[in-house]
């Protein structure tokens, strides 16, 4: 179902005329703005080909972009794995039958979701170089600070995904498991959690987009990632604008691929689980303060979307 049908009826001949005129108008405005930007940049000498070429030639890739990208991807990849481990652990703990365990994991999860990642990163950076200098080489403390900060924040978000995933399953799943004689723990282990994990896969992939984007925060604490390297590139060849634009495009390409993967998974997996595979809003995580009821409303809304899709 496309959204436009909710607000708009199928256009008649008059509406179609208006739409055509608006289409032409928008096209003209877009072209006008692009030309204006191009001319403004050209007037500043920013459009000269050698500046752009220096940002994408072999030298730029081999000495700046690829090393930077390697560090970015490396930190992000490690953070992805460790935050999934962290998230699964605390997610299960939040479902534990013992109240004190649930309570401890709730405090930990809510704390790391409420604190800005950058604050966490800056603190860990100092902490590592001050107290763990015999374990971690102080030159690498920014790198580890990025990984650990991303792990703590995104792990907390994933823990919430696990819990929300289990809660979003229809009550019938649990009831059926209990009816065939499983205990609540067994029902969680064999029926609910496996379905919840499948259901949360798409959200997990879009969480990777957040991890990749947040790894650029490492720039602020001096971690040499893609942004830092492209800044070096720009400083070296006097093409800071071109270098940063190239870095932004690299981020856009990688993240768009991840978003598409998430959407594909969401379509493929919806038949494999009774949970909701819908990706919320890709790229932004639900954050602190939402309670069970809140998730219930959200799930209800998503269930309605799904129903409409099936129609």
């Amino acid at each position, binding site marked *: 179902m496309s959204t436009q049908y909710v607000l708009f*009826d199928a256009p008649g001949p008059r509406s179609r005329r208006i739409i055509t005129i608006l289409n032409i108008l928008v096209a003209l405005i877009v072209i006008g703005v692009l030309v204006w930007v191009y001319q403004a940049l050209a007037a500043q000498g920013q459009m000269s080909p050698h500046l752009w070429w220096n940002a994408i030639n072999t030298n730029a890739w081999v000495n700046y972009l690829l090393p930077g990208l390697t560090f970015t991807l490396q930190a992000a990849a490690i953070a992805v794995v460790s935050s999934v481990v962290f998230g699964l652990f605390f997610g299960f703990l939040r479902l534990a039958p013992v109240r004190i365990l649930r309570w401890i994991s709730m405090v930990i999860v809510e704390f790391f979701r*409420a604190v800005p990642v950058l604050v*966490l990163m800056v603190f860990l950076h100092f902490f590592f170089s001050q107290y763990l200098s015999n374990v971690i080489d102080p030159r690498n403390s920014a790198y580890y600070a990025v990984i650990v900060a991303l792990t703590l924040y995104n792990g907390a978000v994933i823990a919430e995904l696990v819990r929300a995933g289990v809660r979003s399953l229809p009550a019938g799943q649990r009831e059926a498991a209990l009816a065939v004689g499983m205990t609540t723990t067994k029902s969680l282990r064999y029926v609910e959690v496996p379905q919840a994990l499948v259901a949360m896969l798409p959200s997990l992939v879009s969480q990777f987009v957040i991890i*990749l*984007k947040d790894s*650029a925060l490492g720039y602020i604490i001096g971690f040499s990632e893609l942004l830092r390297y492209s800044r070096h590139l720009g400083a070296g060849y006097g093409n800071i604008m071109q270098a940063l634009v190239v870095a932004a495009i690299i981020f856009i390409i990688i993240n768009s691929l991840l978003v598409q993967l998430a959407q594909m998974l969401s379509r493929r997996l919806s038949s494999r689980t009774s949970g909701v595979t819908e990706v919320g809003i890709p790229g932004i995580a639900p954050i602190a303060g939402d309670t069970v009821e*809140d998730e219930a*409303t959200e799930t209800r*809304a998503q269930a309605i979307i799904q129903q409409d899709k099936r129609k």
Partner: protein
Amino acid sequence: MEDILFLFEQYPIWEGFWANLKLAFFSAIFAFTLGVILALFRISPVRSMSWLSGAFINLVRNIPLTVLVVMGVLIFWGQLQINMHPDFDTNFFMLATIALSIYHAPFFAEAIRSGVNTVPLGQAEAARSIGLGFFAAARLIIIPQALRGAITPIGNTLIALIKNTTVAAAASVMEASGIMRTMIEFNPNLMVAIFLIIAIGFSLIVIPVGLLTTWLSERLAVTR
């Protein structure tokens, strides 16, 4: 305890958080306005408008906020020499606000669109069948329900925005995370206490917004 009082006396912690709140306030207004426009474009039946808005949303959403802020500083100010304000600090504050607004607008747009998505098709059909025209149907039937459905994602975006104001540190705006950095540099022995002060400060800002979102979304939930 004395150490903590010393920190509050010695460093502008309150001013730091105030800067974060100011950044959040202005960026939220701009980002939400831009988000509404983007959402309207996105759901309009005019193909080019919806394509344009979709392209903007997908481009901006995939760029890290840090890259946007650094671009604002190094390209807008450094390279193109565009000064929005003669005062150095205010100029950078404005740059950070613009970057934050641009970055969060797509998220607000998607939040609003997901709100519209929660309205079942039958509501629009019923509105049309009792003779309501486009504007009447939108004003009386669709938009009230859509806004209620959008409260949770809008609240979540707002919380993300508040936390992301710390990235203004990349534009050397003096805010809480930057002050934390200075404090730790000069008082490394109080590191953990300093971190906890800043972390609890953010929790105290963020958690009420979360609770308010939950309360509103429950209170205004559309029963279907």
